């Protein structure tokens, strides 16, 4: 299977720049991966707008659920696609169409989601594309949190990380 290689700098740049994420394929079930990712990203300070036509109008983790990307009435820098590769294509095209009005910069497809043709269209339209990755795992990996679970983060450095200090 082909592996997509993204530099740590690219991923960190995305995670530093983006403030609002539209999460397509959000689930209301607490033990679904998309629910885990949404809750985690909220804890890290991102605003996450859930998208799921079946749940439109309901509230999920304090946010209103929208039926589609076009219904979200505010800008979102990133679209995180929690759907299979087949479903991803039309969602990517919708993101391309909404790029200017919603100030979209990044299209991110989850672990296992690989849609090369759609990715090429998005890149041609000036969007940054990440495929086959989970933003929760990448955030954790690059901020030492994945390491706490005993996992190989792949991060080797003698630099001291700067911490944002906040009392809780």
């Amino acid at each position, binding site marked *: 299977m082909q592996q997509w290689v993204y530099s740590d700098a690219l991923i960190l740049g995305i995670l530093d720049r983006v403030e609002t994420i539209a999460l397509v394929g959000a689930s209301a079930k607490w033990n679904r*991966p998309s629910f885990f990712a949404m809750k985690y990203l909220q804890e890290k300070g991102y605003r996450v707008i859930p998208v799921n036509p079946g749940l439109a109008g309901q509230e999920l983790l304090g946010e209103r659920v929208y039926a589609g990307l076009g219904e979200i009435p505010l800008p979102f820098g990133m679209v995180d696609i929690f759907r299979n590769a087949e479903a991803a294509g039309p969602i990517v095209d919708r993101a391309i169409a909404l790029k200017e009005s919603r100030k979209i910069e990044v299209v991110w497809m989850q672990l296992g989601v690989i849609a090369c043709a759609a990715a090429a269209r998005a890149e041609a339209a000036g969007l940054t594309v990440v495929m086959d990755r989970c933003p929760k795992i990448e955030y954790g990996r690059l901020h030492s949190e994945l390491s706490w679970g005993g996992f190989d983060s792949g991060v080797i450095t003698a630099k001291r990380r700067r911490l944002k200090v906040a009392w809780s």
Partner: protein
Amino acid sequence: MSREFGFETRSIHAGTQPEPVTGARQTPIFQTASYVFHDADHAASLFNLQTFGFVYSRLGNPTVAALEERLASLEGGRGSTCVASGHAAQLLALFPLMEAGAEFVASTRLYGGSITQFGKTFKKFGWQCRFLDMDDLEAVKAAVGEDTRALFCESLANPGGAVSDLESLARIAEGAGCPLVVDNTLATPFLCRPFEFGADLVVHSTTKFLTGNGTAMGGAVIDSGRFDWSKSRRFASLSAPEPAYHGLAFQETFGDLAFTTFSHAVTLRDLGAAQSPMNAFLTLLGLETLPLRMERHCRNALAVARFLETHPAVAWVSYAGLPSSPYRGLAQRYLPAGAGSVFTFGLKGGYRAGARLVEAVALWSHLANVGDSRSLILHPASTTHRQLTAAQRQAAGAGDEVVRLSVGLETAADLIGDLQQALDSLP
């Protein structure tokens, strides 16, 4: 990615960035039982496994996690779980795969303690272990099937010096839909990385070469992250909803993080064999010099083995690094940088000569351990393999006349000189 850095670099750096709060360069020993939550919601997220973080040191500890990450990196695995001893690691590796009435298949050439653990103690859980000569690949193929939960072997066996044909065993395991679990204690990831040959899980007694100086007990299970636990119904712990976590299915939710997440959140939580942070720190220190030490261990072992082959009191030497070894070909394939430093030799004088030799040496420590910077000597028949039957001892390469060496890092001529005077003194 760490794979781009060399093995030596990762032996020193993987898992241990400078500690960000204080800047401490050496890894702190987090000697704490528990960890403060930010608020009630953070606590809930941690207990639901929705966020990364520490709750209680039975499940995870920062110093132990640093060792886990380093071992995962060195083996080329996804994640690892460090535990109180090598035996605890074997229990932890099999626990998610087994249940009462289930069967796994293990090599007859395993370390004697493993044979006792698998054949006697695990039986009390209703776990059936079927022992097979894993050199006989046809017999292994015939023995495994839809109900087999795992194939278990050592890459380089303690003490007989047998080398497993990992690639062939991995193919047999794959055909049977079960994981290949490899005890890589004697080889260490410097000499052999079983995942590169298709193994699914690796276990270690970190007590041995990884720590390297006999200071700390420890064990590790490393997961390749590649086995699909949901492919059959055999591995329900990882593929079916887990009642203790409100019906969460580990593989579905955690993907390739599932095995290691389960090992911390369920197995360590309930079996409790956590590693102490002090021991993890000592093993991290030891790993810094693993590549240098293993090179010297192998060089000294070859020199000692060559000497023994020339001594008239010695009947045979079983070291996979010698041209005389039947495992020479497998060793060149799986252990190209050296065949380790634990091996056996036979004395013409049998049991009594063996028992006498261990008393006649003065520089070799007579004790039950391997993988120390000091050279160690043991007569297995009268010690570690005492609990086994004569037939089991023979199969494990620990017959009456057998002496086991763990060749250390001293001056090779001194080690040979001491063995020579002791061998010369045998009647």
